């Protein structure tokens, strides 16, 4: 019999390798999609949470999580979807944010900053290419439900900003 803590750490290890299908530089763990891994009577339970309601990747991610746990031979396991508390961009780890930036997507700023932007105040988003704060929002909707479309006024490059929720 495998000890519970090693079962759980094996599960985390397997989940750390599951990449987001749209942004393959960050894992579903770094994005905060995996909420919890617990063990109950020898069975693993993995709780995952949907990000943006309309994200078409949600279902794919669930299938990838199941596949990763299966490949790591961690049966029996159960994957649950939990809605509450809702997923928020605050759940993205610092490492995840760093990788997003490196990939060319401006990571979400602190949520409170974004609330101000929502009330019509100027939002400060740093250009992931040149680091300038002199940026401008072209559209709050972008190429996927999780992104807004920005342009840098310094280097003139367009870029995606990971939308705060």
């Amino acid at each position, binding site marked *: 019999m495998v000890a519970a803590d090693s079962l759980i750490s094996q599960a985390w290890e397997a989940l750390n390798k599951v990449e987001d299908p749209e942004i393959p530089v960050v894992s579903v763990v770094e994005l905060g999609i995996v909420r919890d891994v617990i063990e109950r009577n020898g069975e693993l339970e993995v709780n995952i949470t949907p990000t943006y*309601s309309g994200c078409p990747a949600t279902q794919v991610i669930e299938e990838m999580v199941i596949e990763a746990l299966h490949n790591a031979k961690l049966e029996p396991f159960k994957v649950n979807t939990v809605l509450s508390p809702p997923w928020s961009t605050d759940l993205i780890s610092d490492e995840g944010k760093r990788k997003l930036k490196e990939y060319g997507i401006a990571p979400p700023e602190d949520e409170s900053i974004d609330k101000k932007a929502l009330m019509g105040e100027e939002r400060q988003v740093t250009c992931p290419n040149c680091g300038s704060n002199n940026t401008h929002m072209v559209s709050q909707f972008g*190429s996927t439900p999780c992104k807004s479309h920005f342009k840098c006024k310094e280097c003139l490059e367009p870029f995606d900003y990971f939308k705060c929720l």
Partner: protein
Amino acid sequence: MNQNKSLYHAVLHLGDNALILGHRLSEWCGHGPVLEQDIAMTNISLDLIGQARMYLDYAGKLTGENKNEDDLAYRRDVLDFKNFLITEIPNGDFADTIARQFFFDQWNVLYTKALMESKDETLSAIANKAHKEVSYHQRWSSEWVIRLGDGTAESKEKIQRGIDDAWMFTGEMFTQTDEEKALVAEGILPDAAALKAQWEEEIKRLLSEATLVMPTDNFMQSGGKEGVHTEYLGFILAEMQYLPRAYPDAQW
């Protein structure tokens, strides 16, 4: 059981609003006036369809018959749909779509905020999630009302007409069925009638900023929640449901 049936109807209503308006907005895909706005409308469509899935998944569980969200979206007919009429009226031109979205978003922001306080844990969880997304929608449609209203003579005329035409479909958002009133009393649903004053105030403020005239007509259409729909819903369902009905077990 009765409480369960009332709750089922209420959740269906919320899911149907999101599903039908989401479908309507998806019709703009590839037809938007400029690329960014095409993307905006289809993003909002995706959000709404995602929210519809959460509501309908919950409604399916309330039936006790193991129904899923697809059964409810694709295997019900017009009379069983409970969406507001405003969600099914045709897109018209861009200004008509903005006007419809503007009225609906202002309602949705207030409603989901109040629904977060529901004693029903699932509804509260869905509302918590939906509210943040809906706030983005509201900001977008309000900005467009202001931009078109305070824009050129032509854009102003078009958005004023859109606002006037959609107005008679807004009354329904603040009426409640007897079933809903019982759920309000139990703290499961927010009191929609109580949201009306705040909704009107917001609409009035934004229309004034847009230099537009607030409609004053008191005649309101209703019937959506009772399954009495406009002729348009049947056409939406015909398109939306064709494939799953013709090929019931089709898979991607």
